[in-house]
């Protein structure tokens, strides 16, 4: 164990810090759930890609830097420290990207990865259906083979950013006689294909962050299938591992929120009547630290040849509940200004806490609800009986 950065790692941090200082837009971008905001974020992705900072852990041939996980953590720490824009293509780069590298053919990698990294093609995720939420294996949308094509019919829902994205990666039933997690395949669909209808669903903040997607005899080439026919569930679970595991929510994001929370508390310390707030602030800070330490531990283990397992479920519960707690605490400090939208003239310096609070409500729900994660921990990590 050596909890000091190497000279190379320190130099890398400086390089990242400098590049971000030179390139992060001075004015915060608009929400990526608006047309203008989405375009601004796409531009930012292109800027990142030009500097080869889009996905530092990816191989150089795909526009990455071949960084190891410790360097990735350093990059993320600097990224959030610099208050750089959120990653609009996160479903693509953090989830599909690693999955493609593991299961894609050389031709698929050549076709999809670079355009994803460059910000040219934005990705949405199409897994849930009206009848398949926590019970994801209840998927009914079908992709039926017809020569070199699949013909797709059905409906997906809760597709994040599908309103503005270019592509969606889905799981469809390719064997109509199959049940549960058998007979599913992992297939990419361009959102401008004939027969695709995208209907926006406004989220809590009123913006169309979600969409439902209808497929009506949509034809895609067999080339768009990742892995073997029928292997969809297996591939999806490895994607879900990335989602809940290491990549999607790097600790830096929560550490910076915790830092802002401490600052907010210090600023308002004299007006706070609720004694439990002080304890909550300290607890939030400690938990953000714990999440960082845990991620460093996992990263080190993976670099020494270990594998990520059921701890991805432990992670997901921890960061999503921490995010909720931090924002709840911030709103408690802001007291009766907490409900005000930033444009309210009486809002003063309430900042982004309300927006973050609304978003934090989704954490325990998406990427597999925390109730499902608790079942996974109990059954797969602790060995409790399924039935």
């Amino acid at each position, binding site marked *: *164990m*050596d*909890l*000091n*950065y*190497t000279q190379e790692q*320190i130099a890398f*941090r*400086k390089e990242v*810090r400098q590049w971000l200082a030179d390139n992060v837009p001075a004015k915060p971008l608009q929400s990526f759930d608006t047309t203008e905001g989405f375009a601004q974020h796409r531009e930012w992705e292109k800027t990142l890609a030009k500097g080869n900072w889009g996905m530092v852990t990816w191989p150089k041939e795909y526009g990455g830097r071949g960084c190891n996980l410790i360097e990735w953590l*350093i990059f*993320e*720490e*600097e990224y*959030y*420290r610099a208050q750089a824009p959120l990653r609009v293509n996160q479903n693509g780069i953090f989830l599909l990207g690693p999955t493609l590298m593991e299961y894609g053919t050389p031709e698929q990698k050549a076709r999809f990865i670079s355009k994803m990294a460059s910000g040219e093609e934005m990705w949405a995720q199409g897994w849930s259906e009206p009848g398949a939420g926590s019970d994801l294996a209840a998927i009914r949308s079908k992709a039926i083979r017809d020569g070199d094509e699949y013909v797709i019919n059905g409906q997906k829902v809760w597709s994040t950013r599908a309103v503005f994205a270019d592509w969606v990666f889905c799981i469809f039933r390719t064997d109509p006689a199959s049940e549960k997690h058998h007979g599913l395949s992992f297939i990419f669909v361009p959102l401008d294909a004939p027969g695709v209808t995208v209907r926006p669903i406004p989220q809590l903040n009123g913006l169309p962050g979600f969409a439902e997607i209808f497929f009506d005899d949509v034809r895609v080439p067999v080339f768009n299938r990742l892995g073997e026919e029928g292997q969809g569930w297996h591939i999806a679970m490895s994607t879900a591992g990335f989602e809940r595991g290491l990549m999607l929510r790097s*600790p830096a*994001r929560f*550490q*910076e929120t*915790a*830092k802002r929370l*401490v600052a907010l*508390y*210090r600023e308002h*310390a004299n007006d706070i009547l609720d004694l439990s707030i*002080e*304890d909550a602030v*300290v607890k939030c*800070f*400690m*938990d953000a*630290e*714990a999440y*960082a*330490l*845990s991620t*460093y*531990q996992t*990263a*080190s*283990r993976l*670099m*020494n040849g270990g594998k990520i397992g059921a701890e991805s479920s*432990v992670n997901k*519960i*921890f960061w999503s509940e921490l995010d909720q707690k931090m924002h709840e605490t911030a709103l408690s400090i802001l007291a009766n200004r907490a409900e005000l939208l930033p444009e309210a003239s009486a809002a003063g310096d309430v900042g982004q806490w309300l927006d973050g609070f609304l978003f934090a409500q989704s954490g325990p729900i998406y990427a597999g609800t925390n*109730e499902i*994660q*608790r*079942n996974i*921990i*109990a*059954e797969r*990590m*602790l*060995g*409790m*009986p399924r*039935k």
Partner: protein
Amino acid sequence: MDFTFSEDQLLFCDNVKKFLHNEVTADSIRASWETDTGRSEQLWQQLVELGLTAMLVPEQFGGLGMNELDFVLLAQTCGEVALPEPLVETALVATPLLAALAGQDSRCANLLEKIAAGERKVAVGHAANHLVSDAHIADYLLLPSGNQIHLVSKDDVKLTAQPSVDPSRRLFSVDWKVSEETCITNGVEGVGLLAATLNRGALGAAAQLLGLAEAMVSMTVKYTADRHQFGKPIGSYQALKHHMANCAVKTEFAKPVLYRAAYTVSQRPLHADFAVSHAKVSAGEAALLAAKNSIQSHGAMGYTWECDLHIWMKRAWALDKFWGHAGFHKNRLHQWLMNPNAKIGADKTFGEQVA
């Protein structure tokens, strides 16, 4: 940057773990309650032979010259088996204190060699703990008085047993007279050593608390797989699964915090307060939750003397308050965090390391 234990550290811990799991069982612990001292001299000598009392003793005094990070996994294992013997207090808390003074004080040097060899035992008092544990089997006691630490022979103290809810714990109030002859350190040095002793004590308690938490979860998982109601194992019900999953989340996230604390105590001892307090609070919460959810999952059986759960549960309740209760450690965290100059933020997890 590498946040893993070395192969050697893991292998050593594995070997001791096997030994302890064989030798220390619920039955052997219950048997120890019926003895006068509650302690087994035979087991202690086996621990000595494994080199465990000598681990943090410098090589020049007959020890292995290892550090707190090398010991932390063992301390966790001591919690896992609910070891009654004061191995953590001896090896992790007492010997580094004696080692710090051994260069200037031959009494400390001699005692250190004898502890490593299993010929003498020592108990440690501290202002954070009102009572001294295992004072009854100690040949010498390390006792605080203001900024001073005294090394006092068992012949010069009067012990009064103070029974604990945990029948394995043996606590004593100590009557003794401060004298110049027994003083081994004072002033600034004394303050520093008392502070470092507290941090090692809290680190050892935190490690044991995590071991206790994991042991309680694993015995509860087993119990709920065996116990049937409504025609199914009760462990198949989601309510109980979630009780156990909540324990696992707490424990998993307390571990890296504990290991960072052990690393900091061994490498940057003067900057370890925050890391240690974080570890003690997190481990305490994990162990208390494990106790609460375990007894609930055991039902009425968990409320009996006969069920082994209470051996672990009571130790957790006790150690959570030992070497600084949650209030003490949360206060240290609060003081640290609310200092306007506190170095916090995503780039400072391991302190300020940017040139």
